[in-house]
């Protein structure tokens, strides 16, 4: 198996390139679009030859969009800040709640523990719209609508199950003997959790946190319904470019590039953890 003929190597290379091309093409195309004006984007037939321009990016960063028809203010940079705040906040809360819960589910099998754990996971399966409508009513009544706290709370539906299930798998993989050994050595339960379980599940916790961050970042529907303009993340903010005077494809593309850049960078940087976390979650789930 480890000896490949040059022909095999060539074919393998071609196949891999095809796959990469297939998956990377949308991103590549978006990057191209973001460097064009609406006119060159919409010409027919489409062409890869154009004069690149940073107008779209400049418009987004400065918040001033001057088209040939009118001038409008956009709040994209604020949306970006919202995205960061909401995602990071949600992940932080989810880690705080989810990691101890995952440990409990991994180590203490009690009557109904599997059911509780599964119920938590099932929140991921439920169509978000199902809970959204009643939730938006409640939120308005208790004053959580259009607040960061309210959004972060709802984002737990995304983050918490993910972290719970992935981290639980990691905790289960740690030999209980290690913890027994540390306790028998004379350490309390809490210090065993902090000194043994947490560091050893560290990579798993990091992977789960990253994944949760990406999922939270990409969320659209919760924020669309529950947040008004000043609390909206980039996913919802991009809608602003669909204006009465036409769809600003160039700006949308630039906005998308800017909004996926952080998660893409994060994913590439922590690729190994992510794959590990995802596959472990899959196996254990």
């Amino acid at each position: 198996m480890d000896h490949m003929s040059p022909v095999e190597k060539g074919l393998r290379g071609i196949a891999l390139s095809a796959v990469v091309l297939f998956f990377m093409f949308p991103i590549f195309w978006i990057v191209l679009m973001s460097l064009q004006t609406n006119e060159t984007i919409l010409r027919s037939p489409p062409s890869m030859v154009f004069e690149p321009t940073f107008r779209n990016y400049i418009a987004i960063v400065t918040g001033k969009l001057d088209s040939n028809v009118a001038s409008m203010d956009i709040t994209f940079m604020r949306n970006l800040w919202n995205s960061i705040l909401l995602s990071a906040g949600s992940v932080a809360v989810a880690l705080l709640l989810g990691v101890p819960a995952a440990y409990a589910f991994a180590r203490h099998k009690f009557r109904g523990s599997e059911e509780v754990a599964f119920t938590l996971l099932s929140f991921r399966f439920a169509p978000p719209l199902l809970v959204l409508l009643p939730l938006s009513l409640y939120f308005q009544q208790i004053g959580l609508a259009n607040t960061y706290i309210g959004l972060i709370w709802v984002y737990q539906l995304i983050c918490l199950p993910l972290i719970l299930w992935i981290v639980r798998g990691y905790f289960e993989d740690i030999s209980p003997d290690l913890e027994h050994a540390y306790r028998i050595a004379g350490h309390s339960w809490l210090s065993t959790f902090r000194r043994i379980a947490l560091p050893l599940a560290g990579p798993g916790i990091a992977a789960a946190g990253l994944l949760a961050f990406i999922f939270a970042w990409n969320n659209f529907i919760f924020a669309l319904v529950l947040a008004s303009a000043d609390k909206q993340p980039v996913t919802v903010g991009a809608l602003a470019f669909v204006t009465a005077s036409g769809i600003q494809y160039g700006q949308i593309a630039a906005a998308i590039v800017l909004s996926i850049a952080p998660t893409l960078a994060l994913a590439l940087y922590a690729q190994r953890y992510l794959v590990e976390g995802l596959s472990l979650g899959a196996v254990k789930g």
Partner: protein
Amino acid sequence: MPELRIENLTKRFKNETVLDGVSFTVAEGETTILFGPSGAGKTVLLRCIAGAVDPEEGRITIGGNDISDVPPEHRGIGMAFQNFALFPHMTAFDNIASPLTARRWSREKIQEGVEQVAKLLKIGHVLSHPPRALSNGQKQRTALARALAASPEILLLDDPLRNVDAKLRFEMRLELPRLLADQGATVIYVTQDYKEAMALGDRIAVLSGGRIAQIGTPEDIYRRPASVEIARHFGDPTINLLDVVPEKDGGGVFTRLSDQRVPLDSGLEAAVGRDCVLGLRPEALRFSDSPDGIPVEIEAETPFNEKTVTLVVTARKREILISRPAGTAAPGSGTARIEVDATDALLFDRATQERIAPQHRGGGKSEAAA
């Protein structure tokens, strides 16, 4: 150092009873071996004592104090695990120091304590390594050092030599008694290797199906096993087991193998006429030129360390293993005669599989004299 007393310990997992009313006492400073096949409940018993598993019933006392409700960190126990259970994210030093940091020793005292126990176990040169950089033997020594570091009163060793190679196991077997004696700790040592049990135990408790089948000195277990099963577990090659029915005449109690008379202990009168199993250790048999010997056919000769083991069959196709020191002369093939050293013969009841002990007149058991 206090004594450790286990009283009527019972543990069930779901519907399976893993420990079934286990009671025994380990005198202070003594080493008791828990011996048994896998699944006998040895490890669970050890974990109950350590506090890692909660028993359903029973009491565990150390020096008279009931520790059943004491959390593991306050039981004052040291434990070495079969899989070593070294903390992978700490150096060997920090591993060994973990019982000392828990006791809030000063930095200098910890340094001193770790170095002392590391020197004892000859791992001083690898203290800065993480576990993954240690050889198997060094891991095992580090695990032992960690268990010993705080000089615990009770030491639990869960098959610590299982995962090291034969040479290291042999070395450690000779070294351990001195280490344990220096500590003066009360020790429970779990093993599946009968040689380890015989070599290291002041007493051996044989566990079978969650119960203690026999408890006694190595000599008790080897020379006076309570059942066929225990006799089969102690000894390599395994004891020969032959179905017999003892008889009696003017010459005393005896039985026949291939029509030759094999005398038995005169105290075994109670066994006459019963269906029995005769247990003959391979080293209690020898080749002989005597016409009274049992005629056999030699099947195969298999050298076994410093012994030679021969497989022979009697005229009735009964297989018998005979062992003798290597280098001593014996017929290598064909037919031969063998002789039985009857003083070492064991007799078991075939139905109950329990040993029939010789009863001698003049009161009491003659066992003690054996």
